[in-house]
């Protein structure tokens, strides 16, 4: 360990602002693109499910019309 205490670790020898700005913005960007990709996937699945249910309903309605 290069640092004696937590406050020393956070200070980064006086460069704390720049180091944490870098690591912070990096984390934000990585998380943002990861989560948005997952959200896209969820949205897409919900859309397909909704479409499948719609088709199911149409099919049922047509069957009842015939009866």
């Amino acid at each position, binding site marked *: 360990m290069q640092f004696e205490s937590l406050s020393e670790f956070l200070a980064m020898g006086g*460069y704390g602002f720049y180091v944490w700005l870098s690591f912070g913005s990096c984390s934000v960007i990585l998380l943002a693109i990861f989560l948005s990709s997952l959200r896209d996937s969820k949205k897409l699945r919900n859309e397909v499910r909704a479409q499948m249910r719609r088709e199911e309903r149409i099919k049922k309605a047509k069957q009842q019309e015939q009866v």
Partner: protein
Amino acid sequence: MWKWLHPYAKAERAYQLCNTLLPYFAVITVVCLAVGWIWGLAYAPADYQQKDSYRIIFIHVPSAILSMGAYSSMAIAAIIALVWQIRNAELAVISIAPVGAAMTAIALITGAAWGKPMWGAWWVWDARLTSELILLFLYFGVLSLYHAFEDKKSAGRAACILAVVGVINLPIIHFSVEWWNTLHQGATITKFDTSAIDPSMLWPLLINIAAFAGFVGVVTLIRLKNEILQCEKHRPWVRELIGRGE
């Protein structure tokens, strides 16, 4: 010879391949990111000149390498899409581009945050920085071209052509520090003859590069899966897959 590759041109097989590969990339990313960041931030020794500010290298260099690596893979996929008309390759281009743009943005932002304390300026119109900024615009260009066309066939072709043409920027970025007088320092890892970096710093750096590579893999695979499903959403195999709750 290439016969084993052919089935992967089929969307369903490609989707399954994504599923198979995802856990490996995920493990590499999680493990390497945790080890690399803790090692780089807390255990690697401080630089004798730049003191603790140099720790930005552990995200700056990996993101910069991956910004170019992702572009190369995107361009290879674009060539495959253009020459052999394989749609999965086109989808791969569109899946890689946002991740590559994210890597480029990280490289630029961390570079700015490193430049301020070391050079005294957030940004200079230096050859390395400018060519990296152009790389970001190339990624944006590929994405916006793809989304500018209603017809996805011409959209894909246009985006692929731009991706291939933009490859010219990669050697410019790489050699910019040699061709021009730049403020940016020269290569650190790629000159092995006179090791420019001590092993105590090189190892965490390599682990971080692996972490970023893994991350690019994970997000590309997730996005590629999305793109494949989007294209194939009327096909029975997708219906069956989603019906099963996958």
